[in-house]
């Protein structure tokens, strides 16, 4: 089973390599290859889910190959870097999310676009990076995959983006490049700190986590932990597009092609949250607690600020970007709470936001394809010509504003339970975001689908069969998690319990 | 007796004169000359230390010989470059040599 993980990571890469040998104008073949190279990982991820033991906190399906040893580090120790993959209850949901969204986004991608072959090449490279991030157990490897996402994204935005693609691609690149500096520093710093305690200098996530859990304050000082966490936090804030480092996200969403927007909103920006859970909560819980108030306040600022800004956006894509920022603020709240409910809520929120971002960007992409615009003011009455898209848009908007029965709600509930436990006042302020979300989402949704139909759009077509697959699947997952959250909760529960006992102990 | 400092001071003054000349004179030949002046100053330093240094030794004199040789080679190449430069630009003014900038 362990090799499945390797396969999941390498299949898109393999697909990309195969694409190199496809003639430039064989666009159909290119798309087919991309479909296969993302569908197989989805299947494999599904079978991993089936074989996953949710009662076990350890990394499962682990594979480990020696890769790099850097000698003479730290009193003649060697820094071990391995090609180590594995999943636990935390990474599995992210893996599934990635597998799902990357596959669905291929379906959405048009094989008729110009330079389609290259598009799929970069796309598959991006997918490799994304998969790798969530299954890497070695921090070096993790970082490698994280950086690997940058290059394809640059091209995907830069070649297939909107009017301002050039500057936006560079902004994306440099901004996230800077973010990875903080992350890398923190990674290496953690490895060294752990190595100084355990005597075993390695970038292995699990052993670093264990070492930190066992280390006494004499061995690893709190100052070090808080310091390294701050460095890490800056990286996370940028990766995750948190205020005040969020401004790359609206631009990116505005310019990126639909499928890429789906991937960015659905998976790419969730890497930051994953790092926050994995490293922040998993390795540096003391530091998270030390900065709990800061994080919580930041979370609330994100929730409300982004919601208010979303209120006056004129472009769906930007509105959704700010909406995602606002929702992810709840993640910060939940994490800051550092209790079971808060953490679980935060993870749920991340996954839910990923699904919903994917869904919403897909729908807006479909609308844009038909009407040629995403400006909210220019749309209207689309329920009539495209009732199905309008219906799904409605469902997605409702899910996004936290309607029960969909994934957003249960996430919010848990996150706020956690937050209210820890800091009731801050949490209470944060709940205002729930109302604001309703205001801007309903406004935009109604402006688009309700009201009299604009003449130009009277005869536009509704969704086509192929396009409806991602729409339906994503909605199904949103509802599934909303109705039966245990499907996700049981996965992450053990991991969270592990984290929480560590805080107590 | 002349103290070590006196020699060193003389060397420093010469060095600075050379430096200033190299940075301000307009004719490339004079710039090269100024650089020679700097090397001469270094030679004074070396010889001073060879005679009066903390651990006097003949090595300083040998060093000086090498320096002088190298300086000569440098000047030779420098002048050769100057001549081909003059051929190309018809000017030996260092300030005219700004084809490449920015």
């Amino acid at each position, binding site marked *: 089973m362990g090799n499945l993980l390797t396969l999941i990571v390498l299949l898109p890469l393999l697909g990309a390599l195969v694409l190199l040998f496809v003639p430039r104008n064989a666009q159909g073949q290119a798309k087919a290859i991309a479909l296969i190279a993302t569908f197989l990982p989805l299947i494999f991820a599904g079978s991993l889910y089936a074989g996953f033991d949710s009662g076990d906190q350890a990394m499962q399906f682990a594979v480990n190959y020696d890769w790099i040893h850097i000698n003479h580090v730290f009193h003649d120790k060697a820094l071990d870097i391995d090609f180590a993959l594995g999943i636990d209850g935390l990474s599995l949901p992210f893996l599934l999310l990635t597998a799902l969204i990357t596959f669905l986004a291929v379906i959405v991608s048009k094989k008729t676009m110009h330079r389609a072959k290259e598009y799929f090449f970069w796309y598959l490279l991006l997918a490799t990076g994304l998969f790798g991030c969530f299954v890497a157990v070695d921090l070096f490897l993790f970082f490698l995959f994280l950086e690997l996402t940058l290059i394809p994204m640059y091209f995907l935005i830069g070649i297939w983006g909107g009017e301002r693609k050039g500057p936006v691609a560079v902004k994306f690149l*440099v901004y996230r490049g800077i973010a990875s500096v903080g992350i890398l520093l923190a990674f290496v710093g953690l490895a060294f700190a752990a190595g100084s305690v355990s005597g075993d200098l390695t970038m292995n996530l699990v052993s670093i986590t264990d070492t930190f859990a066992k280390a006494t304050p004499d061995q690893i000082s709190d100052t070090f932990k808080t310091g390294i966490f701050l460095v890490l936090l800056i990286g996370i804030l940028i990766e995750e597009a948190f205020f005040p480092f969020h*401004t790359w996200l609206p631009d990116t969403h505005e310019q990126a092609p639909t499928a890429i927007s789906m991937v960015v909103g659905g998976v790419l920006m969730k890497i930051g949250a994953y790092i926050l859970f994995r490293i922040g909560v998993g390795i540096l819980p003391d530091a998270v607690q030390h900065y709990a108030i800061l994080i919580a306040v930041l979370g609330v600022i994100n929730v409300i600020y982004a919601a208010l800004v979303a209120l006056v956006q004129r472009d769906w894509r930007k509105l959704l970007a700010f909406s995602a920022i606002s929702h992810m603020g709840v993640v910060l709240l939940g994490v800051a709470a550092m209790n079971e409910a808060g953490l679980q809520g935060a993870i749920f929120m991340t996954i839910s936001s990923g699904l919903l971002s994917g869904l919403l960007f897909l729908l807006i992409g479909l609308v844009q394809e038909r009407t040629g615009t995403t400006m909210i003011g220019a749309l209207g009455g689309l329920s*009539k010509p495209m009732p199905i898209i309008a219906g799904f848009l409605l469902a997605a908007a409702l899910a996004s504003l936290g309607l029960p029965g969909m994934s957003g709600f249960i996430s919010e509930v848990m996150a706020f*339970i956690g937050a209210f436990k820890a800091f009731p006042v801050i949490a209470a302020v944060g709940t205002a975001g729930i109302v604001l979300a309703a205001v801007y989402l309903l406004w935009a949704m109604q402006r688009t689908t309700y009201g009299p139909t604009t003449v130009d759009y009277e005869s536009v077509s509704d969704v086509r069969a192929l396009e409806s697959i991602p729409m339906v699947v994503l909605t199904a997952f949103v509802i599934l998690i909303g109705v039966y959250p*245990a499907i996700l909760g049981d996965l992450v*529960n053990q991991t969270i319990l592990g984290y929480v006992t560590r805080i107590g102990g | 007796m002349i103290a070590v400092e006196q020699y060193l001071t003389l060397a420093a003054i010469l060095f600075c004169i050379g430096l200033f000349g190299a940075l301000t004179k307009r004719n490339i030949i004079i710039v090269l000359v100024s650089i020679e002046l700097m090397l001469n100053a270094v030679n004074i330093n070396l010889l001073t230390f060879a005679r009066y240094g903390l651990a006097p030794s003949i090595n300083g004199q040998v060093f000086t010989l090498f320096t002088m040789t190298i300086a000569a080679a440098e000047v030779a190449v420098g002048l050769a470059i100057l001549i081909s430069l003059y051929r190309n630009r018809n000017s030996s003014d260092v300030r005219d040599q700004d084809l490449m900038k920015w």
Partner: protein
Amino acid sequence: MVEYAWLVPFFPLVAYLLLFVLGRRAQEGIVTTLAVLASLAGFVVSLSILSQVHANGPSGPYIFHWLTVGSFDLSVGYEVTALNAMMLVVVTFVSTLVLLFSKGYMNGDKRFVVFYQYLCLFIFSMLGLVISPNLLQMYIFWELVGLCSFLLVGFWYFKPEAAAAAKKAFIVTRIGDLGLFIGIVLVFVATGTFEYSGVFQAIQSGQLNIDWMSHDNFVTLVAILIFVGAIGKSAQFPLHTWLPDAMEGPTPVSALIHAATMVAAGVYLVARAFPLFEASPDALTVIAIIGGITAIFAALIGLTQNDIKRVVAYSTISQLGYMVMALGVSAYVASTFHLMTHAFFKALLFLAAGSVIHAIHHNQDIRKMGGLWKKLPITGWTFLIGALALSGIPPFAGFWSKDEILTGALQSGNTTLFVLGLIAAFCTAFYIFRVFFLTFTGEFRGEKDVYDHAHESGSVMTLPLVLLGIMAIIAGLLNSPVTGYAFEHFMHLDGELGQVHEPSIGMMGLSTVVGLLGIGLAYLMYKSKSINAEAMANGPLRPLYLLSFNKFYIDELYHYVIVVPVVWIARILNFVDHWIVDGIVRALGEAGYVSSLGLKYSQNGQVQTYGLITLLGTVLLIGISLYVVIGGIY
């Protein structure tokens, strides 16, 4: 049968899913049959549950694991109490009739099936809300009914007013929901459970507290927060503004959702969690005051409105205010009783109004009606019954329940509330009969051919009217000496909640007189015209008239105090986001580029400049380092 209570919401859910599968092209007859049958089945099951509860007492909760959060378990399930059972019956009954009525009302609409889908979804959600054994599940369905309300109000999405009303309904109630949300989250934080029973236990043992607040204060806080949810949902002052606007939806929707069921959910919630409220006298006081204010406030507005549905809507708000006030004065039974009777007669009034509207081509302005008695006899009769019930005239249903509320208010010692209630009762009688007289008597004031074509609708529409009319007449008797106060005994199966009030003949007389006075005034003004209504409105009472007519300018107030500032803040923040937050980012980028240009142009091609810069760097490096390192600062 009680353990099968889940069947009640299950039937409409199945109907919903079936309709969903059937799709848009399904035949109207099949659709209606399916929906009505489902609802009817639910009604039958409800009745049997009611009888079993009556015999064996409450049952449940039946709980299933749903989600594990760390060491906590969240569960779903259902539970049947007396209150639940009563609600189940009321909801299924009214639902069935409304589904039937809609067949006629929505006849020919392109999205007929969608309408029924939404209705079934609503019924499912409402029933789910009713049988929820815990606050979280209740909240889930609470939101779902809100969703259905949104969908149904905005059913005619192409009408901008409908869209706006739907949005308003959703957002305003959501503001209330926020309080409820915080409330139940706080409850969970304090007790670790969402179950009603667990919460009540914690209250009994005085353990409902949190480390930063004492038990009493915390209970008050939580109670008020939960009540805020009820304010939103039950359209209490100050969050009432959405309900009148919601009349943009199809009339059956107004009857079912905005009269009989969903808006009563707030009252139901407070009643369901009554032990919590009882533990906090302060919270009860707040509730009573809010209820009283709402009752009189909405009644005053109702006096001058011209839209037939809006008048009824304000009357709904007012009556909900009564119920809330009743709960506030601990008149638990009176409140729930009024909840039930109100469901019948208000649904009746709406459906009758709908029948009128349907008959005269969707005109809702009572100034353009008149003399419809002859054309719509059944509608007229049933409307009259409803109006009488609403006005509290014996022996109609409203009389019994309203009377009990007034008694409760008086006996709780709160005279002001009592007086408010009386005035509201007077106003109620006045405005509903104003509508009645203007609609059914006199000459038709609209277009002639409309009047000529007006006729009673088919039996699908009249049958519900008749059935509801019957209920409006007899339901009140359930808690009267006639039946030996059966309702009260039944409700007490849940435990002796609230205070029991002695009925008094004097009170009955008083309220009847007040009601009759109102009717009389309406008669004088709009039937016999011995008092000129226009003159009054334009005379010295004009400021008051305008105040009432413009709904006390509450909408405008909200617009300028809340909406406009929020939008401005949002605009400012957007500006900040673009020019400051992102501006700094871009400025940094620009600064980098500009300094790059600076460095580029410092490369001026002059070798001596290069040398000079090298020299200056040298001097700086050596100078500073020698100064720092050797000068002793280091």
